[in-house]
């Protein structure tokens, strides 16, 4: 009888031999102590390799993680009539990416959002800008915190600073510093958030994935740390 090949020995160790081949292999082992030793050495290698790589906890994906991967889906308010394409990222003529455009299907149109969001955004020179209450929050509040308007993350873009915000009724948006004010290139209604209490907590999932995709499209580097936010605030977001 020929000695089993390395492939056969490994397949035996991995329990990958079909039934009859396995039986034949075991019959061979009964007559060949060196084969038994070899199998034992390979089993030891398997155990050592598995022990050398610790089991890592399986990663879970929340709505923000999904959005960052381009797998978000949320109702996004189409503010196309008010958008200013000069604000678009360098090299990209469109503010709304394909994924975002897809997410617009079934979304709320600007005409319908005007009423509920009118107190935080106002049209000005063909774009939406932050109204007084939102402007104050964007100017002064740290990330997180409590209040009728929360700030989510703050980050740098090629053109300056942007911050995400969320209002207690679930309207979420992106504010980007331009001149002395904040332009609002994206607003969306957060699907899950229905809280009306003034001290609702900010959770990552409150921001619609499509909005996070907008963040992802603009962000340069990592989000600002609280110390960087504070420095930027004191410097007037310039």
């Amino acid at each position, binding site marked *: 009888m020929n000695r089993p090949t*390395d492939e056969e020995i490994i397949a035996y160790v991995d329990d990958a031999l079909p039934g009859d081949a396995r039986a034949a292999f075991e019959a061979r082992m009964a007559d060949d102590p060196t084969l038994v030793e070899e199998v034992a050495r390979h089993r030891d290698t398997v155990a050592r390799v598995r*022990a050398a790589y610790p089991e890592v906890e399986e990663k879970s994906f929340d709505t923000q993680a999904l959005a*960052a991967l*381009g797998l978000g889906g949320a109702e996004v308010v189409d503010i196309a009539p008010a958008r200013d394409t000069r604000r678009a990222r360098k090299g990209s003529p469109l503010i709304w990416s394909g994924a975002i455009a897809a997410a617009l299907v079934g979304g709320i149109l600007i005409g319908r959002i005007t009423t509920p969001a009118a107190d935080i955004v106002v049209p000005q020179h063909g774009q939406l800008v932050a109204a007084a209450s939102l402007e104050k929050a964007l100017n002064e509040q740290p990330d997180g915190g409590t209040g009728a308007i929360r700030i989510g993350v703050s980050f740098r873009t090629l053109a300056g600073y942007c911050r995400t915000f969320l209002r207690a009724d679930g309207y979420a948006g992106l504010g980007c510093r331009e001149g002395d004010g904040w332009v609002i290139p994206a607003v969306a209604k957060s699907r899950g958030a229905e809280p009306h209490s003034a001290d609702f907590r900010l959770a990552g999932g409150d921001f619609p994935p499509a909005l996070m995709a907008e963040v992802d499209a603009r962000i340069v580097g990592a989000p600002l740390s609280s110390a960087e936010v504070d420095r930027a605030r004191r410097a007037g977001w310039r």
Partner: protein
Amino acid sequence: MSDFRRQLIAVLPRLHRLARTIVRNGQDCDDLFQKTIQRVLERKAQWEPGSRLDLWAARIMKNIWLDEVRMRGRWSRLVQPIPEQDLLSDGGLAAEDIERQVEARRVRALTEALPEEQRLAVKLVLLNELSYAEAAEVLEIPEGTLTSRLARGRVALTRMIAEGRP
């Protein structure tokens, strides 16, 4: 949400685990994972509904990785090798724990030093627990080629471990 997206989201944890198996350090893992999902979305029209989305996406990941490896190979003389991330310290560990850490580190180094095709076969089967058929499908090679690479890698590892190679 489309059926494709739903199915893809369902296999994300598995794909992320696969990325961790394929690459050599944490940063590369997220990078590889993100590039894979991006390409999967770009090519979703090429996926045959009813076939296994996880294996299809895994093949895409493998191809991105091999491109990366080839590119790094061209630049390897200019690039410093990435040091092992995990620092050894005696941070209150008992002697046998330190010994275990040293041994784990040695086995990882030996595994990672295998030729790329053997390294992938060994890691997919032993760490990702893919069957031979699944691993062959991911690597886009016949099953016989997979078993041959796997055997060469495992025989080499077993020999190096026995020799006490650092």
